[in-house]
């Protein structure tokens, strides 16, 4: 079953993408993008996993203990930060979209349908 984590990652990416494509609400769409991105955490952590090894923290275990790859874990932290910032920016855009169009349904967003006022 050594392929299972990769299969889960592909599945998570797939459902996230399906959610984005069929979304009728911009907030839902932003969350779907977050779901899709979490697939990349799974891939990164799976690549660095070592069978029967512990976390790369040597606070109370001898230095010779087998541990998983710390580099991909550090990259995952970067990934999480990037994901958060993208979510924040997209949510801000959704707020402004709602102000301008009065709706969050992407189907309703067409040129010329914005409220002309201000």
């Amino acid at each position: 079953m050594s392929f299972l984590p990769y299969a889960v990652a592909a599945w998570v990416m797939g459902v996230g993408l399906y959610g984005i494509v069929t979304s009728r609400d911009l907030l839902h769409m932003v969350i779907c993008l977050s779901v899709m991105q979490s697939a990349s955490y799974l891939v990164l952590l799976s690549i660095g996993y070592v069978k029967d090894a512990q976390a790369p923290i040597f606070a109370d275990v001898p230095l010779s203990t087998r541990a998983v790859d710390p580099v991909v874990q550090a990259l995952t932290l970067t990934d999480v930060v990037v994901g958060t910032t993208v979510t924040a920016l997209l949510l801000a855009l959704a707020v402004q979209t709602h102000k301008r169009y009065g709706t969050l349904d992407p189907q309703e967003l067409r040129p010329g349908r914005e409220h002309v006022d201000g």
Partner: protein
Amino acid sequence: MSDRVRLPVFAVALTGLLGLVLWGFAGLPDFGDYAGPYGYILNRVAVPERSTTDVVTAVNFDYRGFDTLGEEFILFAAVVGVASILRKLRGERTRPPDDDAAGRRAPLTSLTVRVAGLGLVAPTILVGIYIVGHGQLTPGGGFQGGVILATALLLIYLSADYMTMRAVGPLGVIELAEGLGGAGFALIGLSGLVAGGAFFQNWLGKGTVGDLMSAGTIPLSNAAVGLAVTGGFVFMLSEFLQQTLTRRRDHRRRRRARRSR
């Protein structure tokens, strides 16, 4: 695009994408068969070299410190981006929260939420500082602790209201924290150059492995990043919460017009 066209198009695209993904995954090592060598090398050398017991933190704030500076600037750019997207536009005004339903009072936050929320503020701040401070020893660090610290201010919002939160953490202080943290982290990197080494060289005394004050510049970097992340998150949350008080001037007129249509 109508839903009837959309799904078949998506199915075709997904099949192609899935093929590419599977092709890519086929080249990855089997799960649990990490081949190295960098992870294994770092796990051997990081503890004696840098006096940290958390190798992930050693990678983030020392070996890969330069990349983390980029990560920090991504966060900074997002904060600036959110601030400029949500800036006050022409025709917008800030109104008191009860303006929409004059004569009707919004129900007060329940006593349970207020007591539980306010009671959690101090422990949350303590946990946040602990996580920031122990980044070099146990899992955690500036990013994780900073988010926890930002939660403390959000708890004040939950148990009181937005204005109280603004009074506890004025926007000027928040912006200062974000700026000082970001600049401080960059300066720690530059200090490596001044000390005669490379950018982000860990030149301070490493101390004893396992001590709170060990690992040279790593705890300082964590403190700076913790400050920046706290400031950045509180600032972004404030910007979003501020939006609940902002309305376009014609908002109510428009709604009335739509109703009569």
